[in-house]
């Protein structure tokens, strides 16, 4: 199915979860300061494994950088 991850269109398998997307980005499982929004809403980390992506959804995976 087609999704947008961090602004890039991607094809992924049905059944993919937030957790699998995060791991695709080389984020270590316990990496600190990482958060995810699915279609503009935050998905808390505990729910990453159970939250499945839908076709056409938009995922943002962000982390801390220097700034401000």
């Amino acid at each position, binding site marked *: 199915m087609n999704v947008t991850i961090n602004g890039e269109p991607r094809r992924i398998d049905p059944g993919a979860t937030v957790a699998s997307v995060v791991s695709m980005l*080389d984020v270590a499982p316990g990496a600190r300061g*990482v*958060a995810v929004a699915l279609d503009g809403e*935050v998905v808390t980390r505990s729910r990453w494994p159970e939250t499945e992506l839908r076709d056409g959804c938009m995922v943002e995976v*962000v*982390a*801390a*950088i220097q*700034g*401000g």
Partner: protein
Amino acid sequence: MTDSLRIADRDLGSRLILGSGGFANHELLAQACRAAEAELCTVALRRLPDPAHPQGSILDVLDEAGVDVLPNTAGCFTARDAVATAQLAREAFGTHWIKLEVIGDDRTLLPDAVELLAAAEELVDDGFTVLPYTTDDPVLARRLEDVGCVAVMPLGSPIGSGMGICNPYNLSIIIERAGVPVILDAGVGTASDAALAMELGCDAVLCASAISRAHDPAAMATAVKLSVQAGRLARGAGRIPRRRYAQASTPADGMPAFDVDVEGAAR
């Protein structure tokens, strides 16, 4: 020192808040953290991966330096984006504190009053502890306080401009009328700007570019730290008034006379 700064439910021993933006690398940030002796340091959120700093998380740097994270919403142009970014930050960092930035213009990076106020109200309602980066407009500062912000963070001049406090008058009006701490945010170019801000009555100073982009960031961090302390002390010490004419520091009485002829003639 017992002169701590209370913001919301927290007491800060340091009145210098560090901004993490602009350091050439994490090592310089780490040095500046140690030199500044700050307790809070801003961080931003961006998409992964971060090509600029592949070498490890800024969070580890701050942890090691014993500095807590103050997440911001840098780069947001709308209340909508700022609220979503704040919510991500809460999840990412486990803190409901947020330095709220909603920008109206990408050349001046000045706040957008309308979007800022809307975002502040929504975030306060959502349980955040909101510290908004704002203009030096006293009315806007008041409205931000009225919707529940725990501090206001007016600018001295645009971010990274180094122009110091362009309008000390407006800043002093904000301070006189505020019921929450006032933290100068943006514009500091060098140490004396920070001292002046504190002398005007700011409760704290946030400093990023002046330190991170100085030729020697650690030295400038020390300088700004000392300057914030100096300005705070000077404010409390009760400065002398400004006068148009001189006031002698040496008494005029008791001056010796050396001119023999004149005095001799007078006898």
